[in-house]
């Protein structure tokens, strides 16, 4: 123990680290764990996000149909988010729609909904 105390005690200065808070999807339509029922010819799906970054990337995917390129970011006062208009296609029945939001540091949050196309619309 004595040996361990010899020499000049030295403490490195604290380095302030700004921890990135990942974006969080706070609200959506449909809600979390809900199903996207394609009752109308097109349905509007949207998410609202809480994050400090101004620029967020939203990647909307329908599995088997790839990235949906027509999504629109939303900015209204302090609210930010993204919306997608999904056209009713029979082929979407049983697929999953998901959106992943990334901040500039690459942190992300994701929400997904199974798609159900009513028999009447097929």
């Amino acid at each position, binding site marked *: 123990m004595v040996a361990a105390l010899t020499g000049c005690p030295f403490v490195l200065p604290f380095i302030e680290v700004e921890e990135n808070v990942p974006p969080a999807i*706070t*609200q*959506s*339509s*449909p*809600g*979390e764990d*809900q199903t996207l029922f394609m*009752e*109308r010819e097109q349905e*509007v799906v*949207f998410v*609202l996000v809480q994050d400090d970054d*101004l*620029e967020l990337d939203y990647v909307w995917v329908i599995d*088997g*149909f*790839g*990235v*949906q*390129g*027509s*999504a*629109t*970011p*939303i*900015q*209204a*006062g*302090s*609210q930010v*988010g993204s*919306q997608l208009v999904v056209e009713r296609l029979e082929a979407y029945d049983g697929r999953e729609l998901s959106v992943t939001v990334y901040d500039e540091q690459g942190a992300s949050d994701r929400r997904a909904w199974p798609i159900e196309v*009513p*028999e*009447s*619309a097929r």
Partner: protein
Amino acid sequence: MSRTRIAIAALLLVGLAGCADYALNKGEYTMDSGTLDGESIALRLDVYPSDATPDLEPQSVLLEDGASWQGLQVDVAPSVRVSGRVTGFVASPIAGDPVVPGSADVPVAAAISMVQEFSVAGGATENDGAGEFQLTVPPGSDYRVEIIPDEPALLPFAVVDIVRLGGDLDLGDVYLDYGVPVWGQVLQDDGQPPRGATARLVDAASGAEGPRVELDGEGWYLLRATPGDYELVIAGREFGNDPTLRRSIAVDDDDGVRLDVDAGPAARVVVEGRLVDELGEPLRSADVEPYRVRLTAQDLPGVNGSLVIETQANSGGLFEAQVIEGTWRIEAIPPYEGLVSPVARTVEVGATALDIGDLVLPDRQLWSALVVDPQGAAAVGALAVARELGFDHYTYSGTVGQDGALELDLPAVPVELTLTPAAEGAAITRLIIDPGGTSEDTGGVVAEDTSRIELSVGVEVAGALVSDEEPVPFALVEVRDALGRLYGTAISDEEGQFQMRVEPTPSDYQ
């Protein structure tokens, strides 16, 4: 008037109580609600509630005559139930003992949907084994209920109008009368039917679509309809290359109507080509990121119909489609994550195969502008969204930087640029730009000098969303005019308040 319509008209009285003040009502459509640039425009709000208010459904609210666009108190109405039971004269019984067709009113399997004109409200469902159904929709005016039986050759479909829906409404028994047969044969010029094609009737007055039946092996179809005016639609099979044909047809109380349809030429001609980038390298499709080619008929001699064919380039960038002789617009559409632009070309297809050679998809290009607010200061933080006019309406977005600079990686086709300011005092500003100088007909005025863009002042649209005197937070609010053209988008805050400034020019994209 059919028996169905009489029955429903009597029941409508039930739904007259408790109508919301702002419930969508076509009778309130006037052009006096406010002005933009001196032009009177009536505004409509489309409200999409989020999971913060899970009991509310999407609905549209028309601003009352003379209403100010500030301090709006918008009543987002809780949904009401519309129920009923579908029975028919000829039935495919879905409950009880077997029934001799035509011997009794029995429950019939049907799909039921509700649509509200000029609105985002509506819903769809199927009935149960007892023929009963229930839908939940917001209260409002001018709803249309479409009842589509599963057996279109045995029963007609029905369209029921609800003039005003103020509360829960039981439609009672909706009886699908026997109707009259509508039948005929659909043949191409070689005497063969278009394989896999379907026939359906569309109600001329409402646009409601009836059920489809597939043509039989000799091209015959049989549908049933109540008397009225319809459009007969013969649709080629999905992903096929047969045209969609439309014919007007009047159905009266007599023995039925026969309508044969000439489906045009049977001959198909191969159109082929290759998609390449600016360096001449083939653009290869991957599994979930295909390069798609959409061919849209512009003029088909001898065919009174329309046709869109979609195919994909293969792993060598090659594509091939079999089309009818005529004039075609060919659109090559890259995957969203590709780095090239879509491109379009119009070609004449004759009687022999056509190789259009290489179709070059230009690189996307860096586009930049200085964006300032109405006072000339940098519009820091403004959100920019560029949406392709045509093709698949891909969007590209970015944010205006501290110095007012905006840079976007855009395709070389006309896009509609929407700038949403981050600060108060400026309006959502919209313009059409053509980064590639393609001179495509955009249907709008293309901005010539886009090096400096000044946000307009516009007018304020602001208010609060309330439901049963409680705020409706975190709802998406779209401002549209009476024609449904989009002016702006906002989100309600925790108190249900929303605010935006809009300019006179609506979006070209609806």
